[in-house]
């Protein structure tokens, strides 16, 4: 039961002149027992944010607090309460170690001292991810991608974390086994009430497991709110674009290209280059309701939108004001996504 809070987190790579700000002043709260889904395209900085949360990537400024205390850096002794599951289950397990040994390694000594044998703890953890305890003696090469990814989840759980960070855990898997991993993630929520930051580029996958959805674009969170609110009433044009591209039964999202040439240009625009962020709103070169389509909206080129006064803290000058939101989401002082149970 703990809360992970990012405040003003900024991560830069490279030198001052040729550098790149991968994460730019992100405020986000993963409330106790909730699953926050983070969506965005590649290069939006979502994986960098995840690696910063477990201390693999140093921050330039900002803080990441677990129940008010800074997250412990790797190599430090003691329990590591934030754990992470990586995207590629083929590189995240040591090929020379049995599955059981990989999991056992992450079990804290304090647990083993309390009379629990490593073997029984490994069996329990494998059970949590729906794997047969006999798998403990197998090598990763003998498992399918989905099974490996579940082993990786079991290893992350071995450290008895309070917060789990899942970074694109399904994107390296075949669609047919993606479901097994998503079911495990969904089950864990109910079984051990884990707080989780679930990162994916696929909005439909994020929707399936998350209570809160945060949308990231070029290092910034551009919209955050309870999952149903964000999906039913998206405020940021980028969220709307993601929604339009997501699969949905029956309706084909592949309508004809827009007739209006300005709209068409925007629809064909390329994702922005994080090395050269644009002045003003960073989404404006791709925005279908921005200055390229509606010339009177010059403000988008000049000023970065403030987020606080908009619904879902949307980083858009033309999002609805926050006052509408009062009935929807509880406002905490950071305004960040407090969880509303989705069902």
């Amino acid at each position, binding site marked *: 039961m703990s809360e992970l809070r990012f405040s003003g987190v900024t991560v830069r790579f490279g030198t001052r002149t040729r550098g790149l700000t991968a994460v730019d002043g992100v405020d986000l709260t993963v409330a106790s027992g909730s699953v926050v889904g983070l969506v965005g395209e590649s290069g939006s900085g979502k994986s960098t944010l995840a690696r910063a949360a477990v201390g693999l990537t140093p921050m330039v400024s900002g803080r990441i607090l677990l129940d008010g205390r800074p997250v412990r850096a790797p190599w430090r002794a003691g329990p590591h309460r934030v754990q992470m599951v990586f995207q590629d289950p083929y590189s995240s397990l040591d090929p020379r170690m049995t599955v059981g040994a990989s999991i056992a*390694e992450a079990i804290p000594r304090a647990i083993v001292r309390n009379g629990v044998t490593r073997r029984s703890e490994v069996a329990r953890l494998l059970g949590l991810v729906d794997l047969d305890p006999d798998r403990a003696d197998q090598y990763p090469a003998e498992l399918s991608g989905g099974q490996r990814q579940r082993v*990786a989840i079991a290893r992350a759980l071995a450290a008895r974390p309070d917060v789990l960070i899942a970074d694109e855990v399904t994107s390296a898997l075949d669609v047919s086994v993606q479901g097994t991993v998503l079911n495990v993630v969904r089950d864990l929520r109910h079984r051990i009430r884990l707080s989780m930051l679930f990162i994916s580029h696929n909005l439909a996958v994020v929707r399936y497991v998350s209570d809160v959805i945060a949308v990231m674009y070029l290092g910034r969170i551009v919209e955050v709110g309870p999952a149903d609110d964000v999906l039913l009433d998206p405020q940021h044009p980028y969220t709307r674009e993601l929604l339009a591209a997501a699969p949905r039964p029956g309706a084909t999202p592949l309508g004809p290209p827009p007739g209006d040439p300005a709209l068409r240009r925007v629809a064909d625009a390329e994702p922005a280059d994080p090395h050269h962020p644009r002045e003003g709103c960073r989404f404006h070169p791709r925005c279908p309701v921005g200055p390229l389509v509606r010339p009177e909206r010059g403000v988008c080129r000049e000023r970065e939108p403030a987020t606080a006064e908009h619904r879902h803290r949307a980083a858009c000058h033309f999002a609805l004001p926050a006052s509408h939101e009062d009935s929807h989401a509880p406002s905490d002082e950071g305004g960040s996504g407090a969880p509303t149970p989705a069902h």
Partner: protein
Amino acid sequence: MRAKRGSTWVRALRTPVGATGAALLVVVFLLAALAPVLWSAQASAVDTSQILRGSSSAHRLGTDSLGRDILYRLLVGTRLSVTLALGATAIGVGAGLVLGTTPMWLGARLGRIVGAAVNIAVAFPGLLLALFFAAVFGIGATGAVLAIGFAIAPGFARLTQTLVARVAGLDYIAAARIAGVGRGRVLIRHVLPNIGEPLVVNATIVAGNALLALAGLSFLGLGVQAPAYDWGRLLAESLNSIYINPSAAFATGLAVVVAGLAFNLFGEAVARGLGLRTPSAAVVSDRGRRTPRAPAPARADGAPDREPALLAVEGLCVSFPGPRGATTPVRDVGLSMRRGASVGIVGESGSGKSLTALAIAGLIEEPGRVDADRLEFLGADLRGDRVRAHRHLLGTSFAMVFQDPLASFNPTMRVGRQLAEVAEEHLGLRRAPAWARAVDRLRAVRLPGAERRARQFPHELSGGMRQRAMIGMGLMGTPALIVADEPTTALDVTVQRQVLRLLESIRATEHVAILLISHDITVVSHVCERVLVMYAGRVVEDLPTVDLPRCRHPYTRALLAAVPDLATDRSRPLTVIPGRPIDPSEYPVGCAFAPRCPLADEHCRHVDPALVADGHGRRVACWHADATPAERVGDPN
């Protein structure tokens, strides 16, 4: 895993080089162990009556200046030579490991400093370094061993550094760090076991070189001092009397060379063994073997085609020789396409969908082989060697788009130039008009700033732009068919939509047929009118996209249900397909999907269902295709 590793070493020893190296090495070690025990008395027996004699029956290699038998001295000297070489190697490897792994246990910054120092040391010639250290440590066996050891260290450290850097970037190291595993344990448990093999191989070769170098130092008088003797000293002594007794110098030199060679050959053989992936012998023995095939099913597409087919494929098989006999990852695939049609092939990885596309394009390389009852494109037969005769046709009328557009472009050529080349080659255009057409085609695929982009190199374009440029390259001729193999898998969802839309609009405006291959059934259903579902190398269902909700094969239903969409019920678990995709080398007798199928019974496990048409333009290969929804176990809907 362990058994596999053991077999690599055994396989290395079975090669002639490996066997020779290993045998020599055994001889050298036996001598080193036994010779001093057996013959040290004879080797040190002084016989003043027999000083500096040549070879005779009593003394095969003659005698030295004190009348001692050189052959026995040579044999007994093996132990000191080998011991010193191993000692120097141990020092070199130990120091190299410590220096090479500094980034792991000292952190990145100190590691960089050590790395820089190592790089400078590597730049010095090894022998120079050894002579320098020999002068520092003083003359004698200990000095020589230390000198050679430290001369070896930088090279070994450099190798270790490189290997560690490769492994340290992998996620399992990061995962161990996050789990709170200490640096030392990460190094010992995760890093060293995964870089061990190349290091061991290198150490073997290093030992051989150390043996030679130590002999050299002793020869120069910088190494072993009297009364002790090793091969280097013996060589120096026998060289003085080379005109009286040439065989002594020759035999000693030979001993040094043979022992050095033993280490090096052994190391080489093991190194090559580790690099081996598929034994080439197996490939040769399987070549030419025809794989048994199921008979081609009757073609029945419902309504007969009036218009001649653009692409007609029947009974397509792709097979590869393997260590355990040939495998056939594509079995008896049939499809036909008309102009302007859009057909999608879906399946898991390993289902044979990409190989089908490559086979149609004539891109299956040796030793793979393609068999087909019919493989026609625009009426031209593309089977076997005939594909070469139709290169021009393929060049102008056929386009292929791959998953990774960066790998499909030449990184050193400008994008526009590569497009223009197609027009010069196949349309016979001159340079300027070809360039103009390239820019025009880039505009046709709506590449923003086409003229500027044409002058850029592939790496300067984003993934989506490269994919469009790739499609643009396909449009340089007047294509009748574009085969797109996972064209959007590497792209973001929003960019994916742009590319799919582009393909769709090209199909509509230029009347080009599109064969889209994807693992994602939703992608295919957005673009294509018709969907072919492949499993284990076969088409298991073929139906119009609009009929997908009424699909009849349990695999198709499971694929549809396994992907969450924006309407998936979040309170229920997702449908999953139990088990794992089947490997082409272990196809069963019956239905390949039976082990994962909720409807499978004994009949399914023994008899493979044929792909049969139902008279409504749909084909399905399942014994239970007509089961009513109520009977369908595990149906999510």
